[in-house]
């Protein structure tokens, strides 16, 4: 069962190295697969390269889509990570 949530990138740097590292780290702790969408681009939430290529800057709206047994928990964890500004704000 796929779980979808939208979230706005709040931090100044946007999805750059450090935020992405935290994001990927989190995604890897769950079994569900996760895809992240930004405008017409999409990325595997476990691939730092693809996440970088999303070029999601401050204020960008991203959609997090997870599918798998723990999809709900994964999406919650990712969304709260993003909303907290990746703990950097």
């Amino acid at each position: 069962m796929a779980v979808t949530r939208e979230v706005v990138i709040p931090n100044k740097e946007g999805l750059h190295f450090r935020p992405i590292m935290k994001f990927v780290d989190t995604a890897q702790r769950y079994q569900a697969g996760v895809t992240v969408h930004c405008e017409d681009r999409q990325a595997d939430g476990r691939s730092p390269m693809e996440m970088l290529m999303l070029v999601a800057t401050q204020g960008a709206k991203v959609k997090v889509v997870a599918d798998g047994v723990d999809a709900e928990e994964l999406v919650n964890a990712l969304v709260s990570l993003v909303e907290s500004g990746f703990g950097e704000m």
Partner: protein
Amino acid sequence: MITKKGINASPGVAIGPALVLDTEEYRIPLRTVDPSQLATQIRNLDAALQASRQEVQELRVAATRKLGDDTAGIFAFHEQFIADPRLREQVVELIQQRRYSAAYAFGQVMNQRQKLFRSVADPYLKERVRDIFDIEKRVLRHILGRTREDMTRLTEPVVVVAADITPSQAISLDRRHILGFAINVGGPTSHMAIISKLLGIPAVVALGDITSDVSGGETLIVDGTAGIVVASPDPETIARYQERQREHERQVARLRTLRDQPAVTRDGVAIELLANIEVPEEAAAAVEAGAQGVGLYRTELLFLSSTRVPTEEQQYETYRAAVEAAAGRPVIIRTLDLGADKLAPALGAAPHEHNPVLGLRSLRYCLLHLDLFKTHLRAILRASVAGDVRIMFPMIATVMELRQAKATLADVMEDLDEEGLAFRRDLPIGMMVETPAAALLAPAFAREAAFLSIGSNDLTQYTLAVDRGNERVAHLFSAHNPAVLRLLHRVARAGRVYGCEVSLCGEMAGAPLYTQLLLGLGLRRLSMASCDIPAVKQVVRRTTLAACRALAARVLKFDADRQVLNTLRDAHRALDPEDES
């Protein structure tokens, strides 16, 4: 076992593990593998990814300790990047679907990623291309074995295999650990060849694609005397080459005993044998090898090895050290001879030239950049009080150039006078003869210069219109071409008529095959790599000037270089080892 023939660039035999350097930004040749090998390729990839990840992890820990979390963060990202499941997926896909080797498939994927980064408008992301390069290098090194290594930090002896070695790379080499060179491009007189000879390291160049034929760690034999490279030799072949290696060492030792013997022909004519040097330390080595002085001190190295133009003091200290090491023997300092084939980063990027060898280089460059040139001349003049310094201008084609250079030197002398700085006012001012124009106008130049020094490499290149570094035409480059020989003869004669000393520096001077001919043409002063002096001296001591003159007269009648070569070989073979003066 693979045997490849190239061009012998520096004599001797080296046997050891290969260190493959791919200088061209890691472009791995397209290689497809047999379907049965695909699983092995994937295993190699996984092992390389795993090893790279481990390495980065260690770097991260060390960086956290030494540099703090910010720097360590970069490695943490590298670590994640290497562990990226999509990365492995894409590479494995290429291996399985296109049968690419792991190295090639990985390179392809990294290439796509670099392009992606570059296409992004965000300047911060664009910068990350460098990280991608770094990661790519690390993983490729693991896939290919010990591939990319810094030559300045070698820990064990290796045979260096590379597409090309730039002069600045060559000088940063750790000489103790380099057994030999096997190089894709180049000719017998390319810079690479000159430097390896100078260092006494066996080298074979113009091997085509040796960098992809050999993999890191493979045993390699480099026979720099015959111009042959053998990869993965069998035990008998190794034994055979070890014998050749010993023979070469015996020969070197034999020639060394010639050091204290005078360079005099059997009919009593003294020949001056001088050394070509690039760094002050070589001046001492030259004296050790029996050189009677330095016939060519190339001053470019100081400019090539730094990203900044060396100051007057740095130059002065360097030149003075060389002059002092020569201990009173003459030292001919050639002024800056930088061209497009050896551009100094210090001088900034030169505008693109269609034909750099015929472009703004050498003295032409200096005359246009007078500040740089004057600083250079000041340093040389100040060093002149330390010994017998002579100054030589390169790359002259017109009389006006020589006059301008001399006028600049006079200006600098005047400045030094005003500042009360010491220099030798009477220092001889000579020039190189390396353009056909200078050779044809030799009588005019002989009247205005204190000495002429023939640069046979460039003279041959310009006379025959052949780029000696281009292996596709390098076979046309021959210093014994009749056209070149007639120019040499002309310059030697002009020197005699006008009482102007003529010498020859360049590869020709160091090749024993040419020694008798050069003497016969009227040359009495030859300058060469110090390691060549003993062999040339041996020829001098076994021949007579009368025989040399007869040889030259015969050779000058030939029209084809093949005839010249055969005659020179016969004359060289005919030298009787027992007949020494």
